[in-house]
């Protein structure tokens, strides 16, 4: 016995069923399929097969109906089979949420796994996805999740998600903008100097926040931005390209 250390030893039976092992790890009692984010699995017992969403969709047509986000298809796998599946994310707190015929929008890089009763869709807000339906899902947060009610304005980096309330609008702090313009902080690219931009929530619902973290690279972000450039005509696209080249040479 080692003193001062939690010496609980788990096996396939004693691992919790659909519950947290500790604040940073969650054990799924798998019997069927779950969608899991690539790299979220840290351990498993039993016979569980992990296959890419695209590969699995070719065998089971329902997957395409549930996972209606081609943008993120490369970042997700289907875990199928029976056993205990332990999920973790860089030591962040793991929370499980139950949706009953509801909807919740969450930051894509924080969503770790969801049951097949839920449907994944891309949110209008870039980098966020919406879950609709009934079932359980797992999401990570840096520190415990803070729940607040609208009216509330949230920093985009600290925003984890929202449920039941309308999608946010963007609020620009007039005071900050005026000072930034005078001080010449604003760069040509509109790069942001701090707190001038917030997401403004109104209506009834719940807003989820975390302590802002060092942002994780979202592999889909480039594709999101690139898709938006189809709005530009050829001349504007050329100008944008030149500016981007200039920026990449500056750094």
């Amino acid at each position, binding site marked *: 016995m080692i003193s001062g250390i939690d010496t609980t030893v788990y096996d396939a039976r004693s691992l919790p069923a659909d519950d947290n092992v500790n604040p940073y790890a969650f054990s799924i009692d798998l019997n069927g399929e779950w969608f899991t984010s690539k790299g979220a699995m840290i351990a498993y017992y039993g016979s569980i097969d992990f296959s890419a969403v695209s590969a699995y969709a070719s065998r089971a047509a329902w997957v395409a109906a549930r996972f209606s986000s081609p943008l993120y298809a490369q970042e997700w796998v289907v875990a199928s089979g029976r056993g205990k599946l332990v999920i973790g994310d860089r030591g962040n707190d793991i929370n499980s949420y139950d949706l009953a015929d509801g909807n919740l929008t969450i930051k894509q890089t924080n969503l770790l796994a969801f049951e097949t009763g839920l449907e994944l869709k891309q949110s209008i807000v870039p980098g966020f996805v919406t879950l609709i339906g009934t079932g359980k899902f797992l999401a990570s947060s*840096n*520190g*415990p999740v*803070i729940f*607040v009610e609208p*009216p*509330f*304005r*949230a*920093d985009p980096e*600290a*925003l984890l998600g929202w449920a039941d309330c309308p999608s946010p609008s963007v609020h620009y*702090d*007039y*005071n*900050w903008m005026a*000072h*930034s313009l005078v*001080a010449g*902080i604003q760069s040509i690219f509109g790069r942001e*100097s*701090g*707190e*001038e931009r*917030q997401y403004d929530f109104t209506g009834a619902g719940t*807003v989820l*926040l*975390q*302590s*802002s*973290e*060092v942002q994780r690279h979202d592999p889909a972000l480039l594709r999101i931005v690139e898709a938006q450039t189809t709005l530009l005509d050829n001349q504007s696209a050329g100008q944008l390209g030149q500016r981007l080249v200039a920026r990449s040479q500056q750094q």
Partner: protein
Amino acid sequence: MPFEKINSKVVRIAVTPQQAVLARRGAMLGYSGQVAFRPISGQGHGVGGMVGAAMSGESNPMMATEGNGSVLYGFRGLHVTVLDLTGDSLTVEADRILAHDAHLQTSVEFIGQGGVRSAVRGAMTGQGLFTTRLSGHGSVALLSHGGTFPLQLTGDTVGVDPQAYVGHVGALNVDLKASVGLRDLVGRGSGEAFQLHVSGHGTVYVQASEEKF
């Protein structure tokens, strides 16, 4: 209590027209009520503060939070420690300040006895030669990696790793001790060649990590 810790990494601060808050830029997580943010440059007030800020290389961009409402602050998932000052003064590296009451007096200063020794210490901690001194009556929220714990000093001396040192309250003397021997020169040192020796009466705050930021 104007500073309320929601969890280990987030603090909620009530802002009123009488009580503005200065905070690190980019540390606001969200707010409710009529609150406005204004970027300010430089720590401290007056010419001394301006010069200090310029000399220390403008270590820490700050902003003022004014209006009426409640604001959540946190930064990069770092742990938050709230200290209440009642007339005493806190000395801390500027980039560890998450937020503080606007009516606390701040000044940028050169800690220690001055001279080459302090300069060496600044170079070793890698956090600049200058620290910020906060004094008056009010609250301060500090950032640390993994949380802080206080070490009480009543006339004795404690050795602290420069990277683990967060700040101190009270009349304390901070001194850098270098014990560089032959083994360090040939790369077989203990890795603890530099230590801060703190002595006097007061409290030293130490983080349980050697990670800098």
